[in-house]
């Protein structure tokens, strides 16, 4: 089947065209996905879980997590740095927008430029945190980011003179198109506008990240991930390169934060706890570290499982009226089990199992898979240009 498709000259030409114009192919494929998702939501069994409108709103929220996973993928997947305080940059982005466009400060800066400002502010904080700590070994970075992720919500909570404490900042402005397509403020009732906005942001981010990944910087990230010493001796400035990965990851998180604050119209410190960082990490690991498509799909699937899947499982089990199980001293009454509580237990299990059994993730990047299963590489998968003299000569 594949060979038949490949032998068809028009299809072959189209494929090579899309391969050469990567940004265009991203534009087309993200566009197709954006168009298909709301249609899928109206098809059984999904249509039984809620109306299309709710689904579209949920997809927009899922988009926020796709953005988070995309950014974290740069840090963890490409550069191989474990960032456990990723939610802090999300919080910084969200609060940046909350300060610049809400009744709390009385300002009303438009949403669109603030996307960039939020990303920039988060990146600055990423550099502030990374500059002193990225010189240290990787596991110290993990604990420092963990601490940072813990402290940022504490600061937003305790500096209540500036942040309104537990209650957070409310009444944050909506995006506004100022009459373009006849749309002014987005409002709260129409999820479609947010849905298309987040897809637009994802589309642009994906294009930029693909460009970065294939650039000199992207190759430097991968080189550092695989062997920092070798990368340094090849002339890569490891600290600057790692700092750049950290800043780009942080800026994507900040961008997501701005959108999130604007969609929810409220930010409170408890929205940005460690569980957000942990969820994003699970998404990246499950989707396949280093694979942009993999982590996006991973993020979307995990978000839908946690927001829809577990709820539906609850409903299903409760309506099925399963008999109560008596296993020795343990009694399992299905009706009282709330599967939503098992969410983080499942993530924890998934992280451990993935690392043990399939470290490249469910949708591995080609390079990662080849690195992790070096024996499996078939000669045909290696492009001729990569084979230098003596490459097939056995002993390295």
């Amino acid at each position, binding site marked *: 089947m594949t060979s038949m498709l490949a032998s068809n000259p028009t299809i072959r030409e189209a494929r090579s065209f899309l391969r050469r114009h990567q940004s265009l192919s991203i534009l087309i494929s993200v566009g197709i996905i954006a168009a298909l998702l709301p249609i899928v939501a109206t098809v059984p069994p999904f249509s039984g879980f809620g109306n299309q409108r709710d689904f579209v709103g949920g997809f927009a929220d899922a988009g926020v997590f796709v953005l988070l996973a995309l950014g974290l993928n740069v840090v963890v997947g490409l550069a*191989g740095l474990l960032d456990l305080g990723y939610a802090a940059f999300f919080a910084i982005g969200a609060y940046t927008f909350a300060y610049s466009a809400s009744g709390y400060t009385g300002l009303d800066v438009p949403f669109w430029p603030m996307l960039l400002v939020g990303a920039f502010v988060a990146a600055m904080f990423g550099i502030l945190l990374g500059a002193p700590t990225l010189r240290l070994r990787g596991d110290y970075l993990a*604990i*420092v980011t963990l601490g*940072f992720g813990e402290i940022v919500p504490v600061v937003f909570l*305790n500096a209540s003179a500036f942040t309104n404490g537990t209650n957070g900042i409310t009444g944050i402005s909506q995006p506004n198109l100022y009459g373009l397509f006849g749309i002014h403020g987005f409002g709260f009732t129409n999820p479609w506008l947010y849905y298309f906005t987040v897809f637009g942001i994802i589309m642009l981010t994906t294009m930029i990240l693909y460009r970065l990944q294939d650039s000199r910087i992207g190759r430097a990230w991968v080189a550092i991930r695989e062997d920092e010493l070798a990368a340094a001796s090849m002339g890569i400035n490891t600290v600057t390169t790692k700092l750049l990965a950290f800043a780009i990851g942080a800026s994507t998180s900040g961008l997501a934060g701005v959108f999130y604050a604007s969609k929810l119209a409220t930010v409170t410190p408890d929205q940005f706890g460690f569980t957000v960082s942990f969820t994003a990490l699970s998404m990246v690991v499950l989707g396949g570290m280093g694979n942009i498509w993999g982590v996006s799909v991973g993020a979307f699937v995990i978000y839908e499982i946690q927001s829809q899947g577990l709820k539906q499982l609850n409903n299903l089990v409760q309506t099925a009226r399963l008999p109560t199980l008596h296993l020795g001293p343990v009694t399992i009454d299905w009706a009282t089990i709330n599967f939503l*509580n098992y969410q983080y237990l499942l993530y*924890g299990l998934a*992280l*451990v199992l993935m690392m043990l059994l399939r470290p490249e993730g469910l949708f591995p990047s080609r390079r990662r898979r080849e690195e992790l299963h070096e024996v499996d590489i078939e000669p045909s998968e290696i492009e001729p240009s990569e084979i230098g003299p003596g490459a097939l000569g056995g002993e390295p």
Partner: protein
Amino acid sequence: MTAATVSPSRSRQALGRWKLPIGVVIALVVAYALLYGGVIYQSHVLSIPTTAAKALDQAQQQMINALTIGAIYALIALGYTMVYGIIELINFAHGDVFMCGSFVSWWLLTTLGFSGAISNPVLLTVVLILAFAVSMVVMGVVGVVIERVAYRPLRNAPRLAPLITAIGVSFILQNIVFVVVSNSLINSPQILPNPIIRFGPISIREINLFVIVLAVALMIALQAFITRTRLGRAMRSTAIDREAAQLMGVDINTTIALTFFIGSALAGAAGVVQGLYFGITVFNIGFQAGLKAFTAAVLGGIGNTTGAALGGFVIGYLEVLSSVYGYGQWSEAAVFGTLVLVLVFRPTGILGQQTADRA
């Protein structure tokens, strides 16, 4: 050599011998003075009249408080530092082992039907020994199982992999307790009758004395084990050079498992203390406690058990100090700030010279 050149070096040697005790005394005096200042400052802020004697007494209570909390952190920090010393892994699940230890002790004490102080000293001793023994053994075994299942298969994998499983194990432990036991604050029986004991000018509650003495005893026992026994020597040699130790006939897997057992057992002991001292526990206390204890381990010099103990007391003191000055809710920020400062300016920690290459 003339006598003139010998005498200064001898006096320097003499100074070297006294450097540590003198340093400790100076540190204690400064710490005490800072607490005293804090008490006075707070009485000004809240405009409550106080006398010097009263303030001194309060400062003393806070000092004891700091030592007690520090002892708990020190016990947890020992596990971090031992595991890091031997396999260079930040065991993120360690804080949750501490949490599980507190739940094991809560379960045991409530199952045995205790809810408050036990006045019979014999019964109290038996129950205390039982609680510590059960919690330490159970958590030690849990630690060994975690190592076997989640870390050993990844010993030669890229560094990222065991770190990610460690985070995963941390969440598994936390959420098993969350789902199976309770999702809210639990009252743990405080079985010590807790009278005030007086030693001359110092008055101390029994529980504080018990916790401090117990922690110090466990630390001395650990130090003796590491430095004096064959297994301790195996642990030290594995930490320095795994391959060389293996060539010398050390069973690496057993030694690493033993390290996990001891570290987790100490965390289990800290868990029992948590229940006895604070009287409460909850499924997510391990996260914060773990972060603080790790900071303590880094502060003392990671891989160094004496340093971890010292770091634990320093962190406990910092926490109490910030609350004495009325900034209790910022104590985590203070601890985290300490961590970053130590990592930036002295990544080998206070006592970590010998592990300089580990930073």
